[in-house]
């Protein structure tokens, strides 16, 4: 049970504020904002998502830079409230198409309509985008998202997706007056991997999710077929036991969970999920696997002392995926010793779309690459200068190298949607189906 819900901008302005029980004193938004802003004096530590101040519990999640906050005096389930906040953000996004400060400010009356129905007297009533439709009477005012990052995520070369589709509201009318029948199924995988200094994989995990966003009228039933050789659970073995499947090609998930609407009746026999997708965006399935997989990138780092107060760093990144695939927005970072005063960079000849930077404030080297084509290799050399004060082991005090990237139309787990079947209403009914894959780095780290 929650007492208040509010959304604050990055600067702490109220964008939406709803008090459901009237049992928390005035000024809770400011109290919250001040506490989060100045959690620790040095500003180094982030405020945890849940904290208690004078008997009031504050929950928050950060979505697109905004704070979605709930307060309560009751000892509630933290998972429930945090899950709810996340869900409210998603429902609002379903209705507004794009969720950001501007769209919230323009549509706050619609948001209040939603909030009135989502929560009553502090208790959750429904978070189903579909059920809420009958209670919403305001037309969303659509804002333009200049960046369109989300759809860019899936773009691979010339295979262009309808970029605006995923940002359209579930209730907005198309300018052309007709609704396009379409459904999006996205496989998003996040890789966590740690390489030892000798390049050996210490830990690796893929956290995947199958997201669905349906714009189909009449809620037809959908069947989603996954790999035939898919198995779930690794029996009694330790999850980090790599002997299991290497070579056999089977996909073995450690564990997974499913959306409420998913029926698993035929999952055992033909690896098919059947569901009637609700409106809006939702997660069909989350999965996790620690099965051995081929890492998309290999990173090599060399540090050499080249003088009394000088050293040279060489970072080499090799893309180990097919040349038909291109990774984008790659960022390589490496902390340098505290006493580093200067860094000069040398890129390989003919490098385009690469940036280098030495962040003096936190002594960090940053190397950005717009694109990396599969099979290619890129190198960065950096000359470091140190201050004359005493310094210890340079190698020990730098690193680890970390990487972030996005690889569209690629997934490391080899989990696939074999087919997407929509129960047909008529012979001519043939909606657009988009199945998209993307892999991102969660924690991609190479020690030195």
């Amino acid at each position, binding site marked *: 049970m929650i007492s208040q819900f509010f959304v604050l901008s990055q600067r702490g302005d109220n964008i939406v504020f709803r008090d459901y029980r009237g049992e928390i004193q005035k000024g809770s938004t400011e109290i919250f904002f001040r506490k989060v802003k100045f959690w620790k004096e040095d500003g180094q530590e982030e405020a945890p998502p849940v904290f208690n101040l004078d008997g009031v519990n504050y929950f928050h999640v950060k979505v697109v830079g905004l704070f979605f906050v709930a307060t309560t005096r009751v000892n509630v*389930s933290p998972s429930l409230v945090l899950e709810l906040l996340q869900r409210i953000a998603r429902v609002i996004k379903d209705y507004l198409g794009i969720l950001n400060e501007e769209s919230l400010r323009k549509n706050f009356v619609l948001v209040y309509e939603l909030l009135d129905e989502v929560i009553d007297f502090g208790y959750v009533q429904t978070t189903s985008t579909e059920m809420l439709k009958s209670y919403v*009477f305001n037309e969303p005012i659509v804002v333009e998202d200049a960046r369109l990052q989300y759809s860019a995520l899936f773009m691979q070369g010339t295979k262009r997706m309808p970029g605006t589709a995923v940002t359209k509201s579930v209730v907005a009318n198309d300018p052309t007056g007709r609704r396009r029948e379409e459904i999006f199924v996205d496989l998003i995988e996040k890789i966590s991997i740690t390489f030892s200094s000798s390049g050996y994989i210490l830990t690796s995990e893929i956290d995947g999710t199958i997201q669905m966003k349906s714009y189909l009228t009449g809620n037809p039933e959908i069947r989603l077929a996954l790999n035939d050789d898919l198995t779930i659970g690794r029996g009694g073995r330790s999850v980090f036991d790599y002997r299991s499947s290497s070579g056999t090609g089977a996909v073995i998930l450690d564990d997974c969970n499913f959306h409420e609407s998913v029926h698993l009746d035929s999952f055992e026999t033909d690896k098919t999920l059947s569901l009637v997708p609700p409106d809006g965006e939702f997660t069909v399935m989350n999965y996790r696997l620690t099965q051995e997989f081929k890492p998309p990138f290999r990173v090599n780092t060399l540090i050499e002392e080249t003088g009394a107060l000088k050293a040279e760093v060489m970072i080499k990144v090799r893309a180990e995926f097919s040349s038909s695939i291109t990774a984008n927005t790659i960022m390589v970072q490496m902390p340098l010793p505290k006493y580093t005063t200067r860094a000069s960079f040398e890129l390989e000849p003919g490098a385009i779309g690469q940036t280098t930077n030495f962040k003096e404030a936190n002594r960090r080297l940053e190397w950005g690459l717009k694109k990396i084509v599969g099979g290619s290799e890129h190198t960065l050399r950096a000359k470091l200068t140190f201050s004359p004060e005493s310094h210890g082991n340079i190698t020990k005090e730098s690193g680890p190298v970390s990487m972030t990237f996005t690889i569209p139309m690629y997934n490391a787990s080899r989990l696939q949607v074999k087919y997407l079947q929509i129960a047909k209403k008529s012979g001519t009914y043939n909606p657009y189906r988009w199945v998209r894959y993307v892999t991102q780095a969660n924690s991609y780290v190479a020690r030195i």
Partner: protein
Amino acid sequence: MAPPAQSHRSSSPSQPSGKGEVSDLKSQLRQLAGSRAPGVDDSKRDLFKKVISYMTIGIDVSAVFGEMVMCSATSDIVLKKMCYLYVGNYAKVNPDLALLTINFLQRDCKDADPMIRGLALRSLCSLRVANLVEYLVGPLGSGLKDNSSYVRIVAVMGVLKLYHISASTCVDADFPQTLKHLMLNDSDTQVVANCLTALQEIWSAEASTSEEASREREALLSKPVVFYFLNRIREFSEWAQCLVLDLAAKYVPSDNNEIFDIMNLLEDRLQHANGAVVLATIKLFLQLTLSMADVHQQVYERIKAPLLTLVSSGSPEQSYAVLSHLHLLVMRAPYIFSSDYKHFYCQYNEPSYVKKLKLEMLTAVANESNTYEIVTELCEYAANVDIPIARESIRAVGKIALQQYDVNAIVDRLLQFLEMEKDYVTAEALVLVKDLLRKYPQWSQDCIAVVGNISSKNVQEPKAKAALIWMLGEYSQEMHDAPYILESLIENWDEEHSAEVRLHLLTAVMKCFFKRPPETQKALGAALAAGLADFHQDVHDRALFYYRVLQHNVSVAERVVNPPKQAVSVFADTQSSEIKDRIFDEFNSLSVVYQKPSYMFTDKEHRGPFEFSDELGNLSIGAESAVGTVVPAHRVEANDKDLLLSTSEKEEIKGPSNNGSAYSAPSYDGSAVSAASQALSELTILNPSVPGLTPQSSLAIDDLLGLGLPEIPSPAAAPSPPLLKLNSKAILDPGTFQQKWRQLPISLSQEYSVSPQGVAALTTSEALLRHMQGHSIHCIASGGQSPNFKFFFFAQKAEELSTFLVECIINTSSAKAQIKIKADDQSASQEFSALFQSALSKFGVP
């Protein structure tokens, strides 16, 4: 429920600041109110939006209340909804104006459109104005019978709202019984779920005054009701499922078959994508199997994978909430998770609150088979850019070392930390090496060799400095420079800001003195002089104590500072297992995230589903309830456990706080003493100019220090008769007691003997309660059975509102009473203690 005051901090340019705009709005609204012109609704919409937007950013727009109500006569539903929102926000502060809205809301409650009926009813119930409740009963009654489920859903919550405005109106209208009927018969699951929510709140609140409500609350937990819900759980929304699971977690099944039925029924809930459903299911499974050890363990194995999946899917915030629960389970049963240790490795981009939890889990699951890898991983973090985490990692290595049998490799690693030459690494490592030596004295040679190379000038942090000084004192025999390093530290006494360091310095120099008298005598003299002049009470007292004990008898002094030591086998846990159990009982609540039981951070009325009738650590509350009522058997058990715990903990804590000297039978080396006495006599010679004041041998030290010591009252003197007067009719409610007990420091902690008559009279706790009451010392909670009794007393000064709080543990077999006193006025606690003791001593004496 007015929105918060407008912040002037950083309002964006579009945000107006106040009055002018509001009066503008007022006149514009007035113009539109009577208008029937076409397009008037659109203009109204724009104006209403402005009003709501001002309201949101905190501008007080209550001034337009009348105009808003006038404009509300419309069939436009968007306008209606905005108007409802506005009215709900300001009705409470404008109760008179709220009356204006009743009319149109009541009319809307009878609208043909169920949507309008529902919305109007919700707004009507949200007005929160007490003198309007009479208008609620009718619409609510028909709302509950409405044929639209939407209206019924709203009406059920409306009943709960009414209850909060006026409980008697709600009960008199017999709404709870109507809800009960709906709960068991309605076809709509959300109606059913809301009925359950409302009834739980209403009957819990009523239960304290009404037996019927208390029975009804029990009935919610009866088998038919619980199974009625469980069997339909899949029809409920995911949020309502959580509600049902919470209900089931409080149900006590009659036999094991029932337990297995429930678990089989809910098994697939563990695969739900909503973490709240999964955690609620886990809580239920853990609760159900508490009495079946083997099944309980199977549950742990079963829930591992779903929990790990939830941790790695979803937003960082959600995963933190789940990780906190995983942390709790790992701490309870580390062996079950020992093969999953790699899941607890930190990722570079995780926030520090996540890393801290993971480090603790890594520490807990370390065992013979994985220690090497875990420690290797932790050593990677020691060079981390995030310094607090680097520190935690080093501490984690130390903790693992302290819980392992084979610490060979770890000691090497720790010593490598010392060689890293980073200040914070050195500091942390020193503290660890100290603890390690207390447990494994056999490593002293290796450690001392490395520690000896550290210059005390490079160690600035008090904890680390204290650790280094402790080692200098403890191993002064092995460390050649010890007396000289100590001496130089004492020379800089005035610059040492930490009292902890100065205390350690005193003790270390004493220890060193007995081991290497000639080299240390000068330093000892300087340290005692500086200590006696110290402004810090503890430092002063310790210096005085050392001084006097040396004066009294040198060999006794040596026995005090250098007793033969036993290695510390187990370090005291920071959290008692009672508290940990309490947190476990509150699984799937904030208690787990805060790592505190709910009574520590929530007032009683807001404790939610975890209501405990008892407040102070399982003790029965209130003198009245203790007198004449039978304490339920299970509670007594808990009391015993509590008592045993608190005493054994005390013993464990004693060790560390006394520099690890576990006291055992004294035996000492005579030669060292004689060397010391010799050194003392030499000291006299060094200071011949000071005239002797006392004829005893202690004279020498007196003279040496050359201090004009103030007359100190003899400790042997009988306590003077207490002048303190207590209020015989003192009153304190348990909540305040608890709050004070948490806030105040212990001002006095003592052990008394209880007279044999007292012991004989203490057959039940009530006897003592009555006796103490006669001395104006009142009991707020008591518990226990022979031979262990525990009491919480309080007393107030007669003249002023100044309270004393007492925790008193009496063991009748040892005839000892341990008391802890906390007081508003700490200066009076000594006096109060005397009074308490005298009252206690009269117990049982006719």
